[in-house]
């Protein structure tokens, strides 16, 4: 090898090719350096290995090839040092594809990693394993993904979701099995997994919309807590979903309004008629009622307009644009305008989308017109997009301000921008009839501008405008004919010539003279100008052959020998058509009609017209071309599919109840000391504003309704003191009994006592103001509460396992109930690991009274509704519980040590609850 290199080296040396020499030298240098790296990797010192790996990674980063080190690196895959290991992973993922056989050596390490008790290691093993693009391990990957999809740790499940698209791209054959995994993960209730699995869904089986049905409501409800990247993916997917499942909310009104808005576009008449017919057909339909699920989606995405992530805001904006009733779409405008203050790349994308939106829904952005004014510091591409938006926003009322703005833009130093501004003026002029003359005059003034580019652009625009009403403007045409002597820009020259040719009858004296001049310079002109000279000649020949016959012949002869075949062709064609010869065909009779036919005026329309058939915010929309993997946004269905597919059967509740029963049974036999009469602690009443203007007249009546005798030993909390309540006292307690109508709710027992002399009437709950997801099952109204009486009712609150207070109003009284922890007993035997949970440990000193196990058990169970789990050691007490609404497990361990010290460990997936629980138990135990 070295020998060979030396040979080539010498050969190049002879040829003295400096560049090659350098390459060879650096190549040799690399070989030696790699040797040195190999040595370091083989050493048994971690620090040397780390240093070597760092240098290798730095080389990879620079794009240098280090694949020859593969054997040396892969050996270190099982290295103890975690950083070395990570860098080896980086290397492995980069080169495994090239060195498939050697890569297999590392697989067993990852398989071992998949079984590790540490969730981070399990997850990273799966990550790397699935990133190795080696076909032979597909079955192993499949197995690993399936296993990880039912892992205890949501983080590992998330990784499994990430691995699905990897495997799919490696081996599409696995699709069916992967869809099964996706289906399973879609049912996952954690926010961590939701975004990733929807991502996998979008990549593997975006058309399997049926998998979403059952999870639709859950996804809507989780959305706000999903991490921002997941939100974008979910929102985009749900937009598509909604388009297939719900009815068009604008079905009745939109068509009619649209047609009135489009009145500017002169050629839209036919379309209008179509639409009217369509609208007439629609009237027959039954009135539109929005599906509650459709509403749910709109409601739950709205707060995300406030996200700091531009992609999320854009996703919500496109959702509203595509799905919301017309009246509600307006709210996205403000958020989009806010994005315009972000980085210029963000502005660029947002403006593209705004430009599309302004065509359909102009009214939405009109209040923000000024936000689109152009700053001299904007990059040109942003300026041009803003101009586009301003032009789209122009209407009769604001056109004068917009034109005034445009006038300042024309004085800018950025010439591309000036050209675009002139075009914008032209478009405003065509769209808004009233200002056409003003615009035209302004543009004509620009013809005397010193800058040639400005003049040229104006000429082109004026040409288009003149086509609309040529008769009135022969003086402008004359003016432009004069310009031809000075102006050099080919496009402008061509436009002038075309104008003169087209309207030669309006300028009969000037036209032949222009042709004379052009004939002189013909050979030096650009191709487009030459073509127009030929056109002009032909048209003049037809209208005024006496003066121009010779000139035309001369021009055609010049063209005959032109270098460009287009021009030669055109000359031949025209000669045959207009010059009468013996064999002249049947067409020459119609030559005049052919050349001087009335041509329709061009419609100057926005390049963004009709772009909204692409889903807004997508890459395809930005490029106005379908990108690979783009999913079409379906049209609204004619009639809504069955909404009941989204109903979720409450299978869980049955299971839950069963566990409760077993829990109770075991509990009763286990600890006699803890009866139903456990008292609660920990309660943080954020606020309980009282506002009482109670009272009513007296009347004797009967009170009935479902009441429960208050069990005296439960600790009651005061909700409303009798003085502030003007006689009405309210107390509540958590009864720790299952709330039978809904297993996810916490039963709250409320006792009303009327201490006045008169009766209180109609006690009921009004306007609960709840955090998202919280629900209240109200108690039946208490019609009358006689003086001196007290009554107890039970209401259910689903706190969603949050620590937030539930606020509600009791007739005119406002309350907030703070949540206490787990309220229902749960028991199961823990033999396994506590993976996937947050562990919070605190040391504490037991209070004086906590002398024995018995007391500890009592204290802990009094604090929270936990049940004791038997364990081997007498120094340790273990408790288990489950949160009411999501069924998260809570495990508590108290280990007693010498001298009254103890260690408290709480494992819970919900960190906030865990922390609160630790605090409360600590307090209870140290008293």
């Amino acid at each position, binding site marked *: 090898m070295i020998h060979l290199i030396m040979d080539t080296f010498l050969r190049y040396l002879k040829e003295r090719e400096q560049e090659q020499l350098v390459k060879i030298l650096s190549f040799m240098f690399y070989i030696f350096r790699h040797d040195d790296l190999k040595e370091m990797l083989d050493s048994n*010192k*971690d620090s040397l290995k*780390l240093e070597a790996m*760092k240098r290798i*990674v*730095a080389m*990879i*980063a*620079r*794009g240098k090839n280090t694949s020859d080190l593969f054997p040396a690196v892969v050996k270190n895959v099982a290295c103890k*040092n975690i*950083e070395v290991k*990570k*860098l080896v992973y*980086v290397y492995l993922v980069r080169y495994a594809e090239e060195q498939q056989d050697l890569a297999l050596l590392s697989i067993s390490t990852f398989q071992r990693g998949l079984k590790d008790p540490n969730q*981070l290691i399990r997850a990273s093993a799966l*990550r790397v394993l*699935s990133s190795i693009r080696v076909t032979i391990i597909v079955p192993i990957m499949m197995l690993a993904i399936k296993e990880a999809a039912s892992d205890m740790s*949501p983080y590992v499940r998330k990784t499994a979701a*990430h691995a699905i*698209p990897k495997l799919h791209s490696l081996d599409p054959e696995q699709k069916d099995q992967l869809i099964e995994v996706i289906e399973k993960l879609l049912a996952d209730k954690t926010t961590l997994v939701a975004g*990733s699995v929807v*991502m996998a869904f979008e990549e593997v089986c975006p058309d399997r919309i049926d998998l979403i049905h059952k999870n639709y409501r859950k996804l809507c409800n989780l959305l*706000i807590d999903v991490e*921002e*990247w997941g939100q974008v993916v979910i929102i*985009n997917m749900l937009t598509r979903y909604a388009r297939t499942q719900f009815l068009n909310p604008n079905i009745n009104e939109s068509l009619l309004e649209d047609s009135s808005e489009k009145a500017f576009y002169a050629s839209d008449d036919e379309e209008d008629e179509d639409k009217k017919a369509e609208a007439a057909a629609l009237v027959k339909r039954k009135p539109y009622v929005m599906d509650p699920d459709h509403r749910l989606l709109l409601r739950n995405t709205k*707060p995300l307009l*406030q996200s*700091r992530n531009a*992609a999320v805001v854009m*996703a919500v904006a496109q959702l509203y644009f595509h799905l919301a009733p017309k009246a509600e779409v307006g709210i996205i405008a*403000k*958020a989009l*305008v*806010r994005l315009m*203050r972000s*980085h210029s*790349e*963000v502005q660029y*994308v947002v403006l593209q989308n705004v430009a599309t939106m302004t065509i359909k829904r102009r009214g939405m952005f009109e209040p923000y017109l000024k*936000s689109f004014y152009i*700053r*001299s510091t904007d*990059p040109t591409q942003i300026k041009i997009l803003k101009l586009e938006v301003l032009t789209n926003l122009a209407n009769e009322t604001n056109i004068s301000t917009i034109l005034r703005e445009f006038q*300042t833009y024309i004085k800018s*130093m950025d010439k591309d921008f000036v050209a675009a501004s002139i075009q914008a003026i032209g478009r405003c002029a065509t769209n808004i009839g009233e200002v056409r003359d003003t615009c035209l005059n302004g543009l004509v003034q620009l013809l005397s501008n*010193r800058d040639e580019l400005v003049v040229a652009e104006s000429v082109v625009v004026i040409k288009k405008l003149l086509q609309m009403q040529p008769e009135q403007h022969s003086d402008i045409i004359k003016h432009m004919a004069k310009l031809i002597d000075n102006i050099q820009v080919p496009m402008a020259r061509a436009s002038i010539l075309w104008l003169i040719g087209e309207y030669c009858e309006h300028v009969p004296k000037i036209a032949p003279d222009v042709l004379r001049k052009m004939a002189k310079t013909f050979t030096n002109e650009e191709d487009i100008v030459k073509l127009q000279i030929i056109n002009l000649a032909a048209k003049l020949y037809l209208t005024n052959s006496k003066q121009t016959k010779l000139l035309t012949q001369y021009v055609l002869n010049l063209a005959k020998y032109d270098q460009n075949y287009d021009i030669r062709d055109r000359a031949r064609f025209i000669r045959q058509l207009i010059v009468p010869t013996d064999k002249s065909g049947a067409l020459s009779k119609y030559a005049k009609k052919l050349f001087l036919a009335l041509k329709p005026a061009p419609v100057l329309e926005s390049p963004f017209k009709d772009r909204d058939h692409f889903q807004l*915010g*997508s890459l395809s929309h*930005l*490029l106005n071309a379908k990108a690979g*993997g783009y999913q079409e946004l379906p049209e609204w269905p004619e009639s809504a599919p069955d909404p009941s597919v989204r109903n979720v059967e409450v299978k869980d509740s049955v299971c839950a109840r069963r566990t409760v029963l077993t829990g109770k049974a075991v509990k009763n036999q286990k600890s006699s000391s803890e009866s139903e009469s456990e008292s609660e602690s920990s309660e*943080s009443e954020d606020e309980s504003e009282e506002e009482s203007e109670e009272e009513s007249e007296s009347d004797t009546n009967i009170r009935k309704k479902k009441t429960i005798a208050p069990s005296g030993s439960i600790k009651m909390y005061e909700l409303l003191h009798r003085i502030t309540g003007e006689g009405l006292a309210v107390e509540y307690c958590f009864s720790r009994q299952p709330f039978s109508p809904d297993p996810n709710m916490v039963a709250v027992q409320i006792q009303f006592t009327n201490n006045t002399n008169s009766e209180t009437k109609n006690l009921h709950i009004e306007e609960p103001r709840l*955090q998202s997801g919280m629900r209240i099952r109200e108690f039946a109204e208490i019609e009358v509460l006689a003086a001196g009486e007290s009554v107890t009712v039970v209401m259910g609150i689903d706190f969603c396992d949050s620590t937030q207070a539930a606020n509600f109003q009791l007739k005119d009284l406002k309350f907030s109930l703070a949540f206490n922890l787990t309220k229902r007993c749960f028991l199961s035997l823990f033999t396994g690991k506590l993976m996937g949970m*947050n562990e*919070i440990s605190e040391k504490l000193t037991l209070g004086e009274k906590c002398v024995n196990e018995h007391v500890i058990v009592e204290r802990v169970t009094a604090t929270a509704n936990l049940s004791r789990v038997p364990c081997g050691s007498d120094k340790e007490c273990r408790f288990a519980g489950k949160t009411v609404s999501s069924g998260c497990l809570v495990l508590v361990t108290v280990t007693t040590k010498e001298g009254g010290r103890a260690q408290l460990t709480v494992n819970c997936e*919900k*960190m906030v609850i865990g*922390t609160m629980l630790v605090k409360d138990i600590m307090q209870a135990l140290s008293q």
Partner: protein
Amino acid sequence: MIHSLFLINASGDIFLEKHWKSVVSRSVCDYFFEALERATEPENVPPVIPTPHHFLINVLRHRIYFVAVIQSEVPPLFVIEFLHRVVDTFQDYFGVCTEAAIKDNVVVVYELLEEMLDNGFPLATESNILKELIKPPTILRTVVNTITGSTNVGEQLPTGQLSVVPWRRTGVKYTNNEAYFDVVEEIDAIIDKSGSTITAEIQGVVDACVKLTGMPDLTLSFMNPRLLDDVSFHPCVRFKRWEAERILSFIPPDGNFRLLSYHVSSQNLVAIPVYVKHNISFREGSSQGRFELTLGPKQTMGKAVESVLVSSQLPRGVLNANLNPSQGTYTFDPVTKLLSWDVGKINPQKLPSLKGSMSLQTGASKPDENPTINIQFKIQQLAISGLKVNRLDMYGEKYKPFKGIKYMTKAGKFQNDCHLLVIQKLAG
């Protein structure tokens, strides 16, 4: 989603590449270089460049192009936002995001990129989580690591990854518990040549530096929350609470973060704190032009206007400017025709002015462009919109007084400083 990332410096060298799926040859960047050549200015490169097989989405920050390679449909903003997040993270880690810093820390950069994306889909982008996974390099740690051979990589999964508060790490401990909030406002205005305001808007941000032990739950309320027209929040802010009570309630991330950014509604009249008097004229046929500029404060509530910087792009015909500033220094670049005048502080008694003449190309006609004047300045201790923080309360933690709990909950101790930026003046 994101296939690969290339980092390209101002001179067009690819100095870092990272692939999350199969390797994409760096020759794909040739399309980018083509676009770069076509664009007259560096910021005019289109953010999305289609190529036959890929799409290149790029952002330009700190004179480095971050070019992401995409193969299939993905919302462009998703990628753009992510790339900006990458830059922010680098800045957070290395203090600056320059080519040199990235090259020096290439291994950390690689480890970060590895954690931030999995198979092209964002995995961990919260700086608090990343910092637990990969510790930021410090001089001390580098020294210790080289001696002991220990690493920068965390061994445990950051608890934040799993919790409902992914932005905060657990087990935070400080001896001095403190929370600072900076209200920074920017005025953005266009004023026409007669001095009347065409548009003026105020954008503000509340940046926080919170160093509190445990899991504090903060509420921050404003005296006049109705001022805020359009807000966007850090994910930690409870939106419902804001909707209902106009109170910011949140469990803060640890360290520095942007709590909210807002916009003051345009209905409220925006008081422009400075004014400019100018007279720039060119006479037809003469090769001289006159230049006069005076600045003055108005409506600043008695606060001093500082760090004033005036810049103006003069017409191309101007060869040189011979000016005389009453204070500060000015420079004129004859190539770019950019005039900039570093004024410093405005003294209301003696208004700063810049007067003199400009020499024009002989024979050239009178320039017809209007030079625009950009002004930057700062005013300390003033939020121009009048926004005031009412109080800050903390729940959920009970610190002992010596830990500074009183200092923490005291309202009115906030540092309000206000920077006002970019007033454009279309002069003429």
